[in-house]
Protein backbone atom coordinates (compact mmCIF):
# COMPACT_ATOMS: atom_id res chain seq x y z
CA UNK A 1 0.00 0.00 0.00
CA UNK A 2 2.83 2.39 0.70
CA UNK A 3 4.07 1.82 -2.84
CA UNK A 4 0.59 2.41 -4.16
CA UNK A 5 0.09 5.62 -2.26
CA UNK A 6 3.03 7.19 -4.09
CA UNK A 7 1.42 6.47 -7.41
CA UNK A 8 -1.92 7.56 -5.95
CA UNK A 9 -0.51 10.97 -5.15
CA UNK A 10 0.79 11.22 -8.70
CA UNK A 11 -2.51 10.30 -10.29
CA UNK A 12 -4.85 12.06 -7.90
CA UNK A 13 -4.45 15.45 -9.51
CA UNK A 14 -5.39 14.02 -12.89
CA UNK A 15 -8.67 12.55 -11.64
CA UNK A 16 -12.07 14.09 -11.01
CA UNK A 17 -13.51 13.75 -7.53
CA UNK A 18 -15.84 10.93 -8.59
CA UNK A 19 -13.03 9.05 -10.29
CA UNK A 20 -10.86 9.45 -7.22
CA UNK A 21 -13.62 8.12 -4.95
CA UNK A 22 -14.19 5.19 -7.27
CA UNK A 23 -10.45 4.50 -7.31
CA UNK A 24 -10.38 4.58 -3.50
CA UNK A 25 -13.38 2.28 -3.28
CA UNK A 26 -11.69 -0.27 -5.52
CA UNK A 27 -8.51 0.12 -3.52
CA UNK A 28 -10.32 -0.69 -0.28
CA UNK A 29 -12.89 -3.16 -1.55
CA UNK A 30 -11.98 -5.61 1.18
CA UNK A 31 -13.22 -3.05 3.74
CA UNK A 32 -16.69 -3.20 2.24
CA UNK A 33 -16.58 -6.96 2.47
CA UNK A 34 -15.67 -6.72 6.14
CA UNK A 35 -18.35 -4.24 7.03
CA UNK A 36 -21.09 -5.72 4.84
CA UNK A 37 -22.45 -8.46 7.15
CA UNK A 38 -22.91 -6.02 10.02
CA UNK A 39 -24.23 -3.22 7.84
CA UNK A 40 -26.80 -5.41 6.07
CA UNK A 41 -28.27 -6.54 9.39
CA UNK A 42 -27.99 -3.06 10.85
CA UNK A 43 -29.95 -1.61 7.94
CA UNK A 44 -32.48 -4.44 8.05
CA UNK A 45 -33.22 -4.20 11.77
CA UNK A 46 -32.51 -0.58 12.64
CA UNK A 47 -32.27 1.87 9.74
CA UNK A 48 -35.05 0.58 7.50
CA UNK A 49 -37.49 0.15 10.42
CA UNK A 50 -37.14 3.84 11.28
CA UNK A 51 -37.96 4.83 7.70
CA UNK A 52 -40.71 2.21 7.54
CA UNK A 53 -42.30 3.62 10.70
CA UNK A 54 -42.15 7.07 9.18
CA UNK A 55 -43.89 5.95 5.98
CA UNK A 56 -46.42 3.68 7.70
CA UNK A 57 -47.33 6.49 10.09
CA UNK A 58 -49.22 8.16 7.23
CA UNK A 59 -51.34 5.07 6.60
CA UNK A 60 -53.89 2.75 8.09
CA UNK A 61 -52.43 -0.74 8.11
CA UNK A 62 -53.44 -3.95 9.86
CA UNK A 63 -50.83 -6.36 8.44
CA UNK A 64 -53.51 -8.17 6.38
CA UNK A 65 -54.68 -5.64 3.82
CA UNK A 66 -52.55 -3.18 1.86
CA UNK A 67 -51.77 0.02 3.77
CA UNK A 68 -54.25 2.82 3.05
CA UNK A 69 -52.82 6.33 2.73
CA UNK A 70 -54.29 8.69 5.31
CA UNK A 71 -51.98 11.67 5.16
CA UNK A 72 -51.73 13.29 8.63
CA UNK A 73 -54.81 11.63 10.12
CA UNK A 74 -52.86 9.45 12.55
CA UNK A 75 -50.94 12.41 13.92
CA UNK A 76 -54.09 14.52 14.17
CA UNK A 77 -55.93 11.78 16.07
CA UNK A 78 -52.87 11.24 18.25
CA UNK A 79 -52.59 14.81 19.45
CA UNK A 80 -56.23 15.94 19.37
CA UNK A 81 -58.33 12.89 20.02
CA UNK A 82 -56.40 10.40 22.15
CA UNK A 83 -56.52 11.24 25.85
CA UNK A 84 -54.58 8.12 26.72
CA UNK A 85 -51.75 9.25 24.47
CA UNK A 86 -51.60 12.57 26.29
CA UNK A 87 -51.37 10.64 29.58
CA UNK A 88 -48.63 8.42 28.13
CA UNK A 89 -46.75 11.40 26.73
CA UNK A 90 -46.97 13.28 30.01
CA UNK A 91 -45.80 10.30 32.07
CA UNK A 92 -42.95 9.56 29.69
CA UNK A 93 -41.78 13.16 29.74
CA UNK A 94 -41.96 13.35 33.53
CA UNK A 95 -40.13 10.10 33.78
CA UNK A 96 -37.44 11.08 31.28
CA UNK A 97 -37.00 14.52 32.83
CA UNK A 98 -36.47 12.99 36.29
CA UNK A 99 -34.59 9.75 35.67
CA UNK A 100 -32.43 10.93 32.77
CA UNK A 101 -30.69 13.79 34.59
CA UNK A 102 -30.84 12.04 37.99
CA UNK A 103 -29.22 8.87 36.71
CA UNK A 104 -26.64 10.92 34.82
CA UNK A 105 -25.68 13.06 37.79
CA UNK A 106 -25.73 10.08 40.14
CA UNK A 107 -23.48 8.07 37.82
CA UNK A 108 -21.04 10.92 37.61
CA UNK A 109 -21.01 11.79 41.30
CA UNK A 110 -20.51 8.19 42.40
CA UNK A 111 -17.75 7.71 39.83
CA UNK A 112 -16.12 10.92 41.04
CA UNK A 113 -16.48 10.02 44.73
CA UNK A 114 -14.85 6.64 44.30
CA UNK A 115 -12.11 7.86 42.00
CA UNK A 116 -9.62 8.49 44.79
CA UNK A 117 -10.22 5.22 46.60
CA UNK A 118 -7.64 2.46 46.32
CA UNK A 119 -8.14 0.25 43.23
CA UNK A 120 -9.36 -2.77 45.24
CA UNK A 121 -12.01 -0.86 47.16
CA UNK A 122 -12.98 0.99 44.01
CA UNK A 123 -13.59 -2.32 42.25
CA UNK A 124 -15.90 -3.49 45.04
CA UNK A 125 -17.85 -0.23 45.20
CA UNK A 126 -18.15 -0.26 41.40
CA UNK A 127 -19.66 -3.74 41.58
CA UNK A 128 -22.17 -2.69 44.25
CA UNK A 129 -23.41 0.23 42.18
CA UNK A 130 -23.28 -1.51 38.82
CA UNK A 131 -24.77 -4.89 39.76
CA UNK A 132 -28.49 -3.94 39.73
CA UNK A 133 -28.23 -2.78 36.11
CA UNK A 134 -26.98 -6.13 34.79
CA UNK A 135 -29.02 -8.44 36.96
CA UNK A 136 -32.06 -8.87 34.73
CA UNK A 137 -35.35 -8.73 36.59
CA UNK A 138 -33.82 -8.62 40.06
CA UNK A 139 -35.73 -5.32 40.45
CA UNK A 140 -38.76 -7.51 41.24
CA UNK A 141 -37.42 -7.47 44.80
CA UNK A 142 -38.96 -3.99 45.06
CA UNK A 143 -42.36 -5.64 44.63
CA UNK A 144 -41.54 -7.74 47.70
CA UNK A 145 -40.22 -4.77 49.67
CA UNK A 146 -43.30 -2.69 48.82
CA UNK A 147 -45.79 -5.55 48.75
CA UNK A 148 -49.38 -4.46 49.34
CA UNK A 149 -49.99 -6.74 52.34
CA UNK A 150 -48.51 -6.60 55.82
CA UNK A 151 -45.88 -9.14 54.72
CA UNK A 152 -44.25 -6.46 52.60
CA UNK A 153 -41.18 -5.20 54.42
CA UNK A 154 -42.06 -1.50 54.24
CA UNK A 155 -45.70 -2.00 55.24
CA UNK A 156 -44.64 -4.35 58.02
CA UNK A 157 -42.23 -1.83 59.51
CA UNK A 158 -44.69 1.06 59.23
CA UNK A 159 -47.47 -1.02 60.80
CA UNK A 160 -45.37 -2.23 63.69
CA UNK A 161 -44.19 1.30 64.40
CA UNK A 162 -47.82 2.35 64.46
CA UNK A 163 -47.37 4.91 61.68
CA UNK A 164 -50.17 3.44 59.59
CA UNK A 165 -53.28 1.43 60.52
CA UNK A 166 -53.68 -0.59 57.36
CA UNK A 167 -51.16 -1.73 54.74
CA UNK A 168 -50.63 0.77 51.91
CA UNK A 169 -51.28 -0.61 48.42
CA UNK A 170 -48.06 0.92 47.12
CA UNK A 171 -48.10 -0.12 43.48
CA UNK A 172 -51.89 0.14 43.26
CA UNK A 173 -51.96 3.70 44.53
CA UNK A 174 -52.09 6.52 41.99
CA UNK A 175 -49.90 8.85 43.96
CA UNK A 176 -47.20 6.30 44.86
CA UNK A 177 -46.86 4.21 41.72
CA UNK A 178 -44.97 6.75 39.59
CA UNK A 179 -42.44 7.86 42.25
CA UNK A 180 -41.80 4.23 43.19
CA UNK A 181 -41.21 3.20 39.59
CA UNK A 182 -38.85 6.15 39.19
CA UNK A 183 -36.88 5.04 42.25
CA UNK A 184 -36.64 1.48 40.95
CA UNK A 185 -35.61 2.72 37.51
CA UNK A 186 -32.88 4.84 39.09
CA UNK A 187 -31.75 1.84 41.06
CA UNK A 188 -31.16 -0.08 37.82
CA UNK A 189 -29.73 2.86 35.89
CA UNK A 190 -26.08 3.02 36.92
CA UNK A 191 -24.93 1.15 33.86
CA UNK A 192 -22.61 1.77 30.95
CA UNK A 193 -22.49 5.55 31.46
CA UNK A 194 -21.29 4.96 35.02
CA UNK A 195 -18.45 2.70 33.86
CA UNK A 196 -17.55 5.19 31.16
CA UNK A 197 -17.28 7.96 33.76
CA UNK A 198 -15.09 5.82 36.02
CA UNK A 199 -12.74 5.16 33.12
CA UNK A 200 -12.81 8.79 32.02
CA UNK A 201 -11.83 10.01 35.49
CA UNK A 202 -9.04 7.46 35.67
CA UNK A 203 -7.70 8.60 32.34
CA UNK A 204 -7.27 12.28 33.17
CA UNK A 205 -3.65 13.28 33.13
CA UNK A 206 -2.46 13.91 36.69
CA UNK A 207 -0.23 16.77 35.57
CA UNK A 208 -3.38 18.76 34.74
CA UNK A 209 -4.34 18.72 38.40
CA UNK A 210 -0.85 19.64 39.50
CA UNK A 211 -0.78 22.56 37.10
CA UNK A 212 -4.20 23.66 38.31
CA UNK A 213 -3.01 23.54 41.93
CA UNK A 214 -0.04 25.70 41.06
CA UNK A 215 -2.41 28.10 39.30
CA UNK A 216 -4.26 28.50 42.59
CA UNK A 217 -7.33 26.25 42.55
CA UNK A 218 -8.28 25.95 46.18
CA UNK A 219 -10.52 22.92 46.58
CA UNK A 220 -11.92 19.83 44.92
CA UNK A 221 -15.04 21.62 43.71
CA UNK A 222 -13.04 24.16 41.74
CA UNK A 223 -10.90 21.35 40.43
CA UNK A 224 -14.06 19.49 39.38
CA UNK A 225 -15.42 22.49 37.51
CA UNK A 226 -12.25 23.82 35.87
CA UNK A 227 -10.25 20.66 35.23
CA UNK A 228 -12.18 17.41 35.65
CA UNK A 229 -15.39 18.17 33.76
CA UNK A 230 -13.78 19.80 30.71
CA UNK A 231 -11.28 16.94 30.36
CA UNK A 232 -14.07 14.39 30.44
CA UNK A 233 -16.24 15.93 27.78
CA UNK A 234 -16.18 12.90 25.42
CA UNK A 235 -17.28 10.54 28.21
CA UNK A 236 -19.90 13.02 29.36
CA UNK A 237 -21.31 13.08 25.82
CA UNK A 238 -21.39 9.30 25.59
CA UNK A 239 -22.98 8.98 29.02
CA UNK A 240 -25.63 11.56 28.13
CA UNK A 241 -26.63 9.62 25.05
CA UNK A 242 -27.06 6.41 27.02
CA UNK A 243 -28.91 8.13 29.88
CA UNK A 244 -31.37 9.79 27.51
CA UNK A 245 -32.03 6.58 25.62
CA UNK A 246 -32.55 4.71 28.87
CA UNK A 247 -34.90 7.34 30.29
CA UNK A 248 -37.24 7.22 27.29
CA UNK A 249 -37.37 3.43 27.18
CA UNK A 250 -39.30 3.32 30.45
CA UNK A 251 -42.09 0.73 30.43
CA UNK A 252 -40.89 -2.76 31.25
CA UNK A 253 -40.31 -1.96 34.91
CA UNK A 254 -43.82 -0.50 35.27
CA UNK A 255 -45.45 -3.52 33.66
CA UNK A 256 -43.53 -5.87 35.93
CA UNK A 257 -44.20 -3.97 39.15
CA UNK A 258 -47.55 -2.23 38.68
CA UNK A 259 -49.12 -4.16 35.84
CA UNK A 260 -50.39 -2.82 32.54
CA UNK A 261 -52.47 -0.78 32.58
CA UNK A 262 -51.27 0.55 35.92
CA UNK A 263 -53.89 1.87 38.33
CA UNK A 264 -55.94 4.54 36.55
CA UNK A 265 -53.10 4.75 33.97
CA UNK A 266 -51.01 6.60 36.57
CA UNK A 267 -47.77 5.16 35.18
CA UNK A 268 -48.90 4.47 31.62
CA UNK A 269 -46.09 5.36 29.20
CA UNK A 270 -45.51 5.69 25.47
CA UNK A 271 -44.08 2.20 25.22
CA UNK A 272 -47.30 0.82 26.73
CA UNK A 273 -49.36 2.82 24.27
CA UNK A 274 -47.15 1.54 21.49
CA UNK A 275 -47.61 -2.10 22.39
CA UNK A 276 -51.35 -1.54 22.87
CA UNK A 277 -51.75 -0.37 19.26
CA UNK A 278 -48.86 -2.30 17.74
CA UNK A 279 -49.37 -5.78 19.08
CA UNK A 280 -52.77 -5.92 20.80
CA UNK A 281 -54.96 -4.02 18.33
CA UNK A 282 -52.76 -4.43 15.25
CA UNK A 283 -53.30 -0.83 14.22
CA UNK A 284 -49.82 -0.72 12.75
CA UNK A 285 -50.17 2.65 11.02
CA UNK A 286 -51.23 4.38 14.21
CA UNK A 287 -48.58 2.56 16.23
CA UNK A 288 -45.96 3.67 13.70
CA UNK A 289 -46.96 7.29 14.27
CA UNK A 290 -46.45 6.73 18.01
CA UNK A 291 -43.08 5.09 17.37
CA UNK A 292 -41.97 7.90 15.11
CA UNK A 293 -42.90 10.58 17.63
CA UNK A 294 -40.93 8.66 20.26
CA UNK A 295 -37.98 8.52 17.85
CA UNK A 296 -38.11 12.28 17.24
CA UNK A 297 -38.32 12.98 20.98
CA UNK A 298 -35.22 10.93 21.70
CA UNK A 299 -33.19 12.37 18.87
CA UNK A 300 -34.34 15.88 19.81
CA UNK A 301 -33.39 15.40 23.45
CA UNK A 302 -29.99 14.08 22.38
CA UNK A 303 -29.30 17.04 20.10
CA UNK A 304 -30.29 19.51 22.80
CA UNK A 305 -28.10 17.88 25.42
CA UNK A 306 -25.13 17.61 23.07
CA UNK A 307 -25.39 21.29 22.36
CA UNK A 308 -25.50 22.02 26.06
CA UNK A 309 -22.51 19.81 26.84
CA UNK A 310 -20.61 21.28 23.93
CA UNK A 311 -20.53 24.56 25.82
CA UNK A 312 -18.89 22.94 28.84
CA UNK A 313 -15.59 24.54 29.76
CA UNK A 314 -15.66 27.05 26.88
Amino acid at each position, binding site marked *: *MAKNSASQEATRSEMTKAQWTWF*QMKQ*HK*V*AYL*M*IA*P*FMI*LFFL*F*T*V*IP*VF*ASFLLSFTSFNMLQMPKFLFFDNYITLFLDDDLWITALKNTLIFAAVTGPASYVLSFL*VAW*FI*NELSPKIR*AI*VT*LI*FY*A*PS*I*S*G*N*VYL*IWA*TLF*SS*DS*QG*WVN*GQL*LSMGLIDAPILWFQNESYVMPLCIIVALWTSLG*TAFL*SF*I*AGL*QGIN*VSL*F*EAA*AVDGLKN*RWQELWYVTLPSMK*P*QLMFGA*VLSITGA*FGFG*GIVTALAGNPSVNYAAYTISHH*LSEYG*STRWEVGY*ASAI*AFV*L*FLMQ*IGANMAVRKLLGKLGD
Partner: protein
Amino acid sequence: MKKLRTRKHRVVLNRSVGGDTGITIVLAILGAFMFLPMLYVVLNSLKPMDEFWIFPPRFYVVRPTLENYRNLFSLMGDSTVPFSRHIFNTVFTSVVGTFGNLMLSSMAAYALAKIPFPGHGWMFKLIRTALMFTSTVTGIANFITMSLLGWVDTYLAIIVPAFASTLGLYLMKQFMDSNVSAEVLESSRLDGASEFKTFWLIAMPMVKPAWLTLIIYCFKDLWNQGASIYIYSEQLKSLNYAISQITAGGVARAGASAAASVIMMAVPIIVFVISQSNIIETMGSSGMKD
Protein backbone atom coordinates in the same frame (compact mmCIF):
# COMPACT_ATOMS: atom_id res chain seq x y z
CA MET B 1 -4.18 -1.67 32.86
CA LYS B 2 -1.03 0.36 32.36
CA LYS B 3 -3.00 3.49 31.55
CA LEU B 4 -5.04 3.39 34.73
CA ARG B 5 -3.70 4.70 37.98
CA THR B 6 -4.81 6.17 41.23
CA ARG B 7 -4.55 9.88 41.47
CA LYS B 8 -1.47 10.84 43.35
CA HIS B 9 -2.05 14.56 43.59
CA ARG B 10 -3.48 14.50 47.11
CA VAL B 11 -0.23 16.02 48.31
CA VAL B 12 -0.49 18.80 45.81
CA LEU B 13 -4.12 19.70 46.38
CA ASN B 14 -5.39 19.67 49.92
CA ARG B 15 -8.56 17.73 50.42
CA SER B 16 -10.58 19.15 53.29
CA VAL B 17 -11.54 16.73 56.04
CA GLY B 18 -15.08 18.06 55.96
CA GLY B 19 -15.37 17.30 52.25
CA ASP B 20 -13.97 13.79 52.69
CA THR B 21 -16.42 13.07 55.50
CA GLY B 22 -19.36 14.49 53.59
CA ILE B 23 -18.54 12.47 50.50
CA THR B 24 -18.10 9.29 52.54
CA ILE B 25 -21.49 9.77 54.18
CA VAL B 26 -23.29 10.43 50.89
CA LEU B 27 -21.53 7.47 49.30
CA ALA B 28 -22.51 5.23 52.21
CA ILE B 29 -26.17 6.23 51.94
CA LEU B 30 -26.24 5.70 48.19
CA GLY B 31 -24.35 2.45 48.59
CA ALA B 32 -26.92 1.20 51.09
CA PHE B 33 -29.72 2.13 48.69
CA MET B 34 -28.05 0.10 45.93
CA PHE B 35 -26.82 -2.81 48.00
CA LEU B 36 -29.57 -3.56 50.54
CA PRO B 37 -32.21 -4.66 48.00
CA MET B 38 -29.64 -6.98 46.39
CA LEU B 39 -28.77 -8.35 49.81
CA TYR B 40 -32.47 -8.79 50.58
CA VAL B 41 -32.86 -11.00 47.50
CA VAL B 42 -30.03 -13.23 48.66
CA LEU B 43 -31.34 -13.38 52.24
CA ASN B 44 -34.89 -14.12 51.08
CA SER B 45 -33.61 -16.98 48.96
CA LEU B 46 -32.21 -18.54 52.13
CA LYS B 47 -35.31 -18.07 54.33
CA PRO B 48 -37.38 -21.07 55.34
CA MET B 49 -41.12 -20.69 54.65
CA ASP B 50 -42.12 -19.88 58.23
CA GLU B 51 -39.76 -16.89 58.35
CA PHE B 52 -41.77 -15.25 55.58
CA TRP B 53 -44.84 -15.20 57.80
CA ILE B 54 -43.26 -13.47 60.80
CA PHE B 55 -44.69 -10.05 61.62
CA PRO B 56 -43.13 -7.54 61.27
CA PRO B 57 -41.11 -8.99 58.37
CA ARG B 58 -37.46 -9.46 59.19
CA PHE B 59 -34.72 -8.31 56.87
CA TYR B 60 -32.23 -10.95 57.96
CA VAL B 61 -32.54 -14.72 58.06
CA VAL B 62 -32.33 -16.73 61.29
CA ARG B 63 -32.20 -20.33 60.10
CA PRO B 64 -30.77 -20.24 56.56
CA THR B 65 -31.73 -23.16 54.33
CA LEU B 66 -31.35 -24.20 50.71
CA GLU B 67 -34.96 -25.41 50.67
CA ASN B 68 -36.02 -22.65 48.25
CA TYR B 69 -33.45 -23.75 45.69
CA ARG B 70 -34.67 -27.34 45.98
CA ASN B 71 -38.28 -26.16 45.69
CA LEU B 72 -37.39 -24.17 42.63
CA PHE B 73 -36.09 -27.29 40.94
CA SER B 74 -39.15 -29.31 41.89
CA LEU B 75 -41.39 -26.50 40.61
CA MET B 76 -39.40 -26.64 37.40
CA GLY B 77 -40.30 -30.31 37.14
CA ASP B 78 -43.99 -29.40 37.06
CA SER B 79 -43.78 -27.18 33.99
CA THR B 80 -45.34 -28.45 30.76
CA VAL B 81 -42.15 -28.07 28.76
CA PRO B 82 -39.09 -29.78 30.30
CA PHE B 83 -37.14 -27.11 32.12
CA SER B 84 -33.90 -28.15 30.51
CA ARG B 85 -35.44 -26.90 27.27
CA HIS B 86 -35.76 -23.34 28.64
CA ILE B 87 -32.19 -23.50 29.90
CA PHE B 88 -31.06 -24.68 26.48
CA ASN B 89 -33.02 -21.88 24.74
CA THR B 90 -31.36 -19.16 26.78
CA VAL B 91 -27.86 -20.64 26.72
CA PHE B 92 -28.08 -21.33 22.98
CA THR B 93 -29.40 -17.90 21.97
CA SER B 94 -26.97 -16.15 24.35
CA VAL B 95 -23.90 -18.01 23.11
CA VAL B 96 -24.68 -17.95 19.39
CA GLY B 97 -25.95 -14.36 19.45
CA THR B 98 -22.91 -13.14 21.37
CA PHE B 99 -20.47 -15.01 19.15
CA GLY B 100 -22.06 -13.63 15.98
CA ASN B 101 -22.12 -10.12 17.39
CA LEU B 102 -18.45 -10.38 18.36
CA MET B 103 -17.39 -11.54 14.89
CA LEU B 104 -19.51 -9.12 12.86
CA SER B 105 -18.87 -6.13 15.10
CA SER B 106 -15.11 -6.62 15.34
CA MET B 107 -14.75 -7.02 11.61
CA ALA B 108 -16.88 -3.94 10.93
CA ALA B 109 -15.14 -1.98 13.69
CA TYR B 110 -11.74 -2.82 12.20
CA ALA B 111 -12.80 -1.62 8.76
CA LEU B 112 -14.28 1.58 10.22
CA ALA B 113 -11.30 2.33 12.45
CA LYS B 114 -8.37 1.29 10.31
CA ILE B 115 -9.27 1.39 6.62
CA PRO B 116 -9.95 4.85 5.16
CA PHE B 117 -12.53 3.66 2.64
CA PRO B 118 -14.97 6.18 1.16
CA GLY B 119 -18.12 6.19 3.28
CA HIS B 120 -16.60 5.17 6.61
CA GLY B 121 -17.45 8.54 8.11
CA TRP B 122 -21.19 8.55 7.51
CA MET B 123 -21.48 4.84 8.25
CA PHE B 124 -20.01 5.33 11.71
CA LYS B 125 -22.17 8.40 12.32
CA LEU B 126 -25.24 6.38 11.40
CA ILE B 127 -24.29 3.58 13.78
CA ARG B 128 -23.62 6.12 16.52
CA THR B 129 -27.03 7.68 15.95
CA ALA B 130 -28.62 4.30 16.63
CA LEU B 131 -27.37 4.58 20.22
CA MET B 132 -29.68 7.54 20.61
CA PHE B 133 -33.02 5.77 20.47
CA THR B 134 -34.56 2.70 22.07
CA SER B 135 -35.42 -0.51 20.28
CA THR B 136 -39.07 0.19 21.12
CA VAL B 137 -39.05 2.51 18.13
CA THR B 138 -38.14 -0.24 15.68
CA GLY B 139 -40.17 -3.04 17.29
CA ILE B 140 -43.25 -2.83 15.09
CA ALA B 141 -41.42 -2.61 11.79
CA ASN B 142 -39.18 -5.45 12.93
CA PHE B 143 -42.21 -7.59 13.59
CA ILE B 144 -43.27 -7.07 9.97
CA THR B 145 -39.75 -7.95 8.80
CA MET B 146 -39.73 -11.09 10.91
CA SER B 147 -43.10 -12.16 9.51
CA LEU B 148 -41.93 -11.59 5.93
CA LEU B 149 -38.78 -13.61 6.58
CA GLY B 150 -40.79 -16.35 8.27
CA TRP B 151 -38.68 -15.96 11.40
CA VAL B 152 -41.52 -15.42 13.86
CA ASP B 153 -41.43 -18.14 16.50
CA THR B 154 -37.89 -19.27 15.68
CA TYR B 155 -34.52 -18.75 17.37
CA LEU B 156 -33.48 -16.59 14.42
CA ALA B 157 -35.79 -13.79 15.56
CA ILE B 158 -33.79 -13.52 18.78
CA ILE B 159 -30.31 -14.28 17.51
CA VAL B 160 -29.94 -12.39 14.23
CA PRO B 161 -30.91 -8.90 15.46
CA ALA B 162 -28.43 -9.39 18.31
CA PHE B 163 -25.68 -9.84 15.70
CA ALA B 164 -26.12 -6.21 14.72
CA SER B 165 -26.46 -4.56 18.11
CA THR B 166 -24.57 -1.30 17.97
CA LEU B 167 -23.13 -0.57 21.41
CA GLY B 168 -20.50 -3.30 21.08
CA LEU B 169 -19.39 -2.10 17.68
CA TYR B 170 -19.18 1.48 18.92
CA LEU B 171 -16.97 0.54 21.88
CA MET B 172 -14.82 -1.77 19.77
CA LYS B 173 -14.24 0.88 17.10
CA GLN B 174 -13.36 3.54 19.66
CA PHE B 175 -10.95 1.16 21.37
CA MET B 176 -9.26 0.24 18.09
CA ASP B 177 -8.87 3.94 17.25
CA SER B 178 -6.77 4.52 20.31
CA ASN B 179 -5.09 1.15 20.87
CA VAL B 180 -4.15 -0.30 17.50
CA SER B 181 -1.34 1.64 15.86
CA ALA B 182 -1.42 2.16 12.10
CA GLU B 183 2.31 1.35 11.83
CA VAL B 184 1.89 -2.19 13.13
CA LEU B 185 -0.89 -2.86 10.66
CA GLU B 186 1.10 -1.27 7.85
CA SER B 187 4.10 -3.49 8.46
CA SER B 188 1.86 -6.54 8.47
CA ARG B 189 0.40 -5.47 5.13
CA LEU B 190 3.89 -4.86 3.76
CA ASP B 191 4.78 -8.40 4.75
CA GLY B 192 2.09 -9.43 2.34
CA ALA B 193 -0.61 -10.39 4.82
CA SER B 194 -4.16 -9.93 3.53
CA GLU B 195 -6.44 -7.43 5.22
CA PHE B 196 -8.38 -10.27 6.84
CA LYS B 197 -5.19 -11.82 8.17
CA THR B 198 -4.00 -8.47 9.51
CA PHE B 199 -7.35 -8.00 11.23
CA TRP B 200 -7.45 -11.47 12.73
CA LEU B 201 -3.80 -12.04 13.67
CA ILE B 202 -2.57 -8.53 14.43
CA ALA B 203 -5.47 -6.28 15.41
CA MET B 204 -7.72 -8.72 17.26
CA PRO B 205 -5.14 -9.85 19.83
CA MET B 206 -4.49 -6.18 20.61
CA VAL B 207 -8.09 -5.45 21.60
CA LYS B 208 -8.86 -8.26 24.04
CA PRO B 209 -10.36 -5.88 26.64
CA ALA B 210 -12.84 -4.68 24.02
CA TRP B 211 -13.86 -8.27 23.15
CA LEU B 212 -14.59 -9.01 26.77
CA THR B 213 -16.65 -5.84 27.06
CA LEU B 214 -18.60 -6.62 23.93
CA ILE B 215 -19.15 -10.19 25.11
CA ILE B 216 -20.54 -9.18 28.48
CA TYR B 217 -22.82 -6.52 26.96
CA CYS B 218 -24.28 -8.77 24.34
CA PHE B 219 -24.44 -11.79 26.63
CA LYS B 220 -26.21 -10.07 29.51
CA ASP B 221 -28.89 -8.69 27.17
CA LEU B 222 -29.60 -12.12 25.70
CA TRP B 223 -29.31 -13.87 29.04
CA ASN B 224 -31.82 -11.48 30.64
CA GLN B 225 -34.23 -11.69 27.71
CA GLY B 226 -37.75 -12.21 29.03
CA ALA B 227 -40.93 -12.64 27.01
CA SER B 228 -40.38 -11.75 23.38
CA ILE B 229 -43.09 -10.59 20.99
CA TYR B 230 -41.57 -12.89 18.34
CA ILE B 231 -41.90 -16.12 20.31
CA TYR B 232 -45.24 -17.88 20.88
CA SER B 233 -44.36 -21.53 21.42
CA GLU B 234 -43.88 -22.54 25.00
CA GLN B 235 -40.89 -24.73 24.12
CA LEU B 236 -38.98 -21.81 22.57
CA LYS B 237 -39.42 -19.44 25.51
CA SER B 238 -36.49 -18.18 27.53
CA LEU B 239 -35.32 -19.25 30.96
CA ASN B 240 -36.05 -15.83 32.39
CA TYR B 241 -39.64 -16.01 31.15
CA ALA B 242 -40.16 -19.56 32.42
CA ILE B 243 -38.77 -18.71 35.83
CA SER B 244 -40.91 -15.59 36.14
CA GLN B 245 -43.97 -17.74 35.37
CA ILE B 246 -43.31 -20.30 38.09
CA THR B 247 -42.32 -17.77 40.70
CA ALA B 248 -45.26 -15.36 40.24
CA GLY B 249 -47.55 -15.85 43.24
CA GLY B 250 -47.07 -13.62 46.27
CA VAL B 251 -45.53 -14.60 49.58
CA ALA B 252 -46.08 -18.32 49.00
CA ARG B 253 -43.52 -18.24 46.20
CA ALA B 254 -41.34 -15.42 47.60
CA GLY B 255 -38.55 -17.82 48.54
CA ALA B 256 -38.47 -19.67 45.24
CA SER B 257 -38.69 -16.37 43.38
CA ALA B 258 -35.69 -14.99 45.27
CA ALA B 259 -33.75 -18.19 44.61
CA ALA B 260 -34.51 -17.85 40.90
CA SER B 261 -33.34 -14.22 40.90
CA VAL B 262 -30.09 -15.22 42.60
CA ILE B 263 -29.40 -17.89 39.99
CA MET B 264 -30.22 -15.56 37.10
CA MET B 265 -28.15 -12.66 38.39
CA ALA B 266 -25.18 -14.78 39.43
CA VAL B 267 -24.12 -15.37 35.83
CA PRO B 268 -23.76 -11.77 34.59
CA ILE B 269 -22.31 -10.65 37.93
CA ILE B 270 -19.62 -13.33 37.89
CA VAL B 271 -18.76 -12.48 34.29
CA PHE B 272 -18.49 -8.81 35.27
CA VAL B 273 -16.31 -9.48 38.30
CA ILE B 274 -13.88 -11.45 36.15
CA SER B 275 -13.72 -8.89 33.37
CA GLN B 276 -14.14 -5.64 35.32
CA SER B 277 -10.66 -4.23 34.76
CA ASN B 278 -10.87 -4.98 31.03
CA ILE B 279 -14.27 -3.35 30.77
CA ILE B 280 -13.09 -0.19 32.52
CA GLU B 281 -10.07 -0.11 30.21
CA THR B 282 -12.37 -0.34 27.19
CA MET B 283 -14.56 2.43 28.58
CA GLY B 284 -11.49 4.66 28.68
CA SER B 285 -11.92 5.20 24.96
CA SER B 286 -15.72 5.24 24.93
CA GLY B 287 -16.04 9.02 24.70
CA MET B 288 -17.77 10.86 21.85
CA LYS B 289 -15.39 13.41 20.43
CA ASP B 290 -17.64 15.61 18.34
